[in-house]
């Protein structure tokens, strides 16, 4: 077999390791799916009455795309934890001492984490449908899901890079802690227009905002709009941001992985 085919075959073997984890520890998967659902229900039923939403919108119609984006953001620390735990436990070194394709370690992580996020997103979509959220069209919904997973894909590489740099799972707690403020500093839950001017600008340029705004547009759900350039081109930016993040962190992760022998 060629190098590429081995890289993919070995990558799938590494990814399957995670799938076996799911089978061996189903409760972990169930909790992974339930966590964003619980947050969604908490927001929807507890805070929902007090939050200003776009005129004429039901709160869940507005909230759900924000939660979908937020869930993709949570994947960042999940990847980081997995990568740094493997490094700390010597599993990465064991892989590196095998005659397998070296790139398979990263490919396997990417595939497994993307599948996991797709599963969690599917759970949350089902939750959304259950509480009354509706996408306007199937085609749009497919496009929105694609953009959400694209954001997750880009964060994979950021998480891998951070995990390889940190080398121990403890550092992931810091990233986990930062995910909420970074998520709140976006249009996912509130209008950037209601924030102090400079903060609103940061929130509008948050990659999460672009993905969430694009998802709202494609799902046909109400959004904030906005006059700034970035707010007027959500779909373009929902592609551009992940592509840029991937370009930077893919290179950084691969380089960092190769430098493990230094």
């Amino acid at each position, binding site marked *: 077999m060629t190098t590429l085919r081995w890289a993919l075959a070995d990558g799938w073997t590494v990814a399957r390791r995670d799938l076996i984890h799911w089978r061996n520890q189903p409760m972990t998967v169930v909790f992974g799916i339930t966590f964003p659902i619980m947050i969604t229900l908490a927001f929807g039923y507890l805070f929902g009455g007090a939050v200003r939403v776009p005129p004429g919108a039901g709160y869940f119609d507005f909230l759900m795309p924000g939660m979908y984006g937020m869930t993709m953001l949570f994947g960042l620390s999940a990847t980081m934890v997995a990568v740094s735990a493997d490094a700390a*436990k010597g599993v990465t070194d064991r892989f590196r001492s095998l005659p397998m394709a070296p790139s398979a370690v990263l490919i396997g992580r990417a595939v497994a984490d993307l599948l996991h996020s797709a599963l969690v997103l599917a759970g949350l979509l089902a939750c959304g449908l259950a509480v009354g959220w509706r996408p306007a069209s199937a085609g749009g919904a497919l496009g929105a899901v694609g953009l959400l997973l694209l954001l997750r894909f880009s964060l994979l590489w950021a998480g891998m890079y951070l995990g390889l740099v940190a080398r121990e799972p403890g550092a992931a707690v810091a990233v986990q802690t930062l995910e909420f403020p970074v998520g709140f500093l976006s249009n996912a839950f509130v209008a950037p227009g209601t924030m102090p001017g400079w903060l609103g600008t940061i929130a509008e340029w948050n990659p999460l905002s672009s993905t969430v705004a694009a998802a709202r547009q494609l799902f046909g759900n109400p959004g904030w709009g906005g006059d700034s350039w970035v707010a007027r081109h959500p779909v373009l930016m929902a592609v551009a941001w992940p592509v840029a993040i991937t370009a930077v962190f893919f290179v950084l992760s691969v380089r960092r992985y190769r430098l493990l022998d230094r």
Partner: protein
Amino acid sequence: MTAVLARGLRKTYGTKTALDGLDLDVGEGTVCGLLGPNGAGKTTAVRILTTLLRPSGGRAEVAGHDVVRRPREVRRNIGLVGQHTAVDELLTGRQNLELFGRLHHLGAAAARARAGELLERFGLRHDGPAKDYSGGMRRRLDLAASLILAPPVLFLDEPTTGLDPRSRTEIWRAVRELVAGGTTVLLTTQYLEEADRLADRVAVVDAGRVVAEGTPDELKSRLGGDRLDVVIRDPERLAEAAGIAARAAGGPVESDPDARRVSAPVADRVKALTEVPAALAAAGIEAEDITVRRPTLDEVFLTLTATETPAHAGEERA
């Protein structure tokens, strides 16, 4: 033939020197023990020889392949049991071995068959995830995972550190069986006893280089073999006791007034245990305790490093 060869191996991290010109020759089918304290450079040496780390200088070959230029060929010929037990704790033993079998490019059926063989051989027929295994079982699983392709050269980095005595004996037995089957083993250890039990030759490593090399017996005889410890009741008579111990000693006698103890290397333990008590009794010196014991690694180490290398700070990356 030489299974593992290192010439002037160097590894530096900035200004820190982890390996400072390490030379090593491990003959095919033999066991070499790298003995040394934490930070001596043992793990760094293993990581370079297993292609996990690039040397800053020097060269190394494993199974006839250069570790820098032909890492893939090296990886096909080695098994590595690292310092940390590197099995997937959420997988069962069987799932772990099948995973590593597939990554060795065995087909699904071959990987399953090999996993079954190894589980049987290492007594790992346990269905739960590896995190529920005892430390010894996890270590045996780790060892089994490094033997998927029956590699000709096996690296064991402190294989029994942290294990209870029973598990340690089990690992030793497994290693001896492999060696009997012709496997070359390079193991690092902090325990003289482990090197003694397993190794044909021992290289004592300090500050990133080999400071002494030989069979375990050769190294011990360089220390004057066993050590005699005599604790007496009356500290005033320590000098006299030291004089008596010196007659049976094969090296310098050390006196510790606080512990009321004299200590000396002895070549012949039976002679020391018969003559010294008799001489003490004849001189009227009351002894509280007389023992002959093996030198500790500290003593081997302090003796060898005190005479053969200048003080030199070594750093080891965990």
